[in-house]
């Protein structure tokens, strides 16, 4: 049995404003084991970002317990690249917050850039790159921090469809190669099915787990493009749509 690295134990989270309080997450329990890719699927505005903020300890729950035993790496919907920094410096951003860059860091960034086909663009500025390349730069910026758990917050939703398929494929490969875990938050059902081992379908606000899907071995281990062609894909898809309705 693999170690549990994220554990939500009956978690509730409220927000207050002047006149009212709003329960965003109510009695939510789920877990992520080492080496897993877990998808959280729910309607827009369900409170998915709040869940990620709870995991990264930017927020604390009122009730329940959040246990996290992993170093986190974030991927956002927008690439959030800084226009005034070169690609090299953008990749190094996270590291440069933690400490001064060394010669070894520089070598590592260069090698990583070679692997992802961005080496020739290290001196470019973000505005000179396409959307898919920018998102890859964002991924490198995250991976350089050596996370053991990737938090993917709808990372593909601003990309065109083909770029998106390619990047899903690539990220899946990277996660498996590095033997790390990931939580992917999305409202795209097919993306959740092809990338993950397990899926939690969430309800609208207040957010809670409606149903958990454990994908069969075949689906879980297949690369996204193969999983999309798998005979069970349609079944899962239909079932999840029903649950969301």
């Amino acid at each position, binding site marked *: 049995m693999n170690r549990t690295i994220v554990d939500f134990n009956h978690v509730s989270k409220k927000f207050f404003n002047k006149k009212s309080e709003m329960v965003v997450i109510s009695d939510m329990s789920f877990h992520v084991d080492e080496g897993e890719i877990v998808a959280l699927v729910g309607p827009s505005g369900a409170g998915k970002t709040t869940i990620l903020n709870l995991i990264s300890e930017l927020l604390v729950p009122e009730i329940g317990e959040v246990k996290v035993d992993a170093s986190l790496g*974030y991927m*956002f919907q927008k690439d*959030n690249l*800084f226009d*005034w920094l070169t690609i*090299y410096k953008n990749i190094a951003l996270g590291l*440069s*917050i*933690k400490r001064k860059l060394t010669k070894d860091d520089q070598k590592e960034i260069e090698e990583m850039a070679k692997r992802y086909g961005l080496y020739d663009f*290290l001196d470019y500025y973000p505005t000179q790159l396409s959307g898919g390349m920018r998102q890859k730069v964002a991924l490198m910026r995250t991976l350089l921090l050596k996370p053991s758990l990737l938090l993917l917050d709808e990372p593909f939703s601003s990309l065109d469809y083909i770029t998106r398929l390619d990047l899903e494929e690539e990220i899946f490969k990277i996660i498996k190669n590095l033997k790390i875990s990931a939580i992917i938050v999305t409202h795209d059902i097919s993306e959740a099915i092809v990338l993950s081992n397990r899926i939690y379908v969430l309800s609208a606000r207040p957010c809670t787990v409606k149903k958990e899907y454990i994908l069969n071995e075949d689906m879980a281990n297949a690369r996204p493009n193969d999983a999309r062609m798998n005979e069970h894909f349609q079944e899962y898809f239909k079932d999840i749509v029903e649950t969301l309705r």
Partner: protein
Amino acid sequence: MKKSITTLKEFQKRQRLDKFLIVFLRIIIVALLFAFWEIGARTGVINEFLLSKPSSIWNLFITYIKSGELFKHVWISVYETLIGLAIGTIAGLLIAILLYLFPKVYTIIDPYLVVLNALPKTALAPVLIIWIGTGAKGIIAVSVTLSIVVTIISAYSYFVGVDKEKVRMLKTMGANKFQILTKLVLPQNYANIVSIIKINIGLAWVGVIVGEFLVSRGGIGYLVMYGGQVFKLDLVMMGVIILAIIAFIMYEILNILEKYLKKTKRRGKHEK
């Protein structure tokens, strides 16, 4: 019908021609204005006593240059403006940075800033000059009060206006408030800070001229004031024209500086 452009050479030629035409027309406008002014004044269409005329302004200008008076006055005003501009801008930005780091303090003093901003600062000028003295110091103080409040308010609102997502990202990377400031907030607002400086050039000049009106010891403001009091309108006009020219020069220097800084930034820093 316009001939279509087929080669790069033709395109460049057209561009040069356009650029030349624009500059040419700009010069023509000023030349015509002065020509009508001169002719109007000589033929009596324009009241020379109230508006003076270009030729007498020019003669006065030459006299002032020969006596060395002009440089003295111009230097006094430029010096006061530059110091006022520097203090107002730098202090204003520093205060805005402190308020960004301690937002609670901003919430507390917000209404006072609003009142200070709405208050015509020139109303404070006489008091300031009494407190600080009738020399350059008093005049610089007036100049600073004009630019500092608006610098604080606009810089602060630029600072808090940065993309919340990017702030969240830096936080997840473990950045503290100061790192968020130096890595994101300041570089993101580079262009905004330059535009604040541009606005402040104008404000610093207002402060200096008002100060010189009150103190009346030297500077272009003094020349204008003195000219008005003794009804020497050519002196007033000369002062105003010189002011316009210097303000334009300062503005252009900043523009060139900005372009230069952009260029050096564009150079790749990562050696392969």
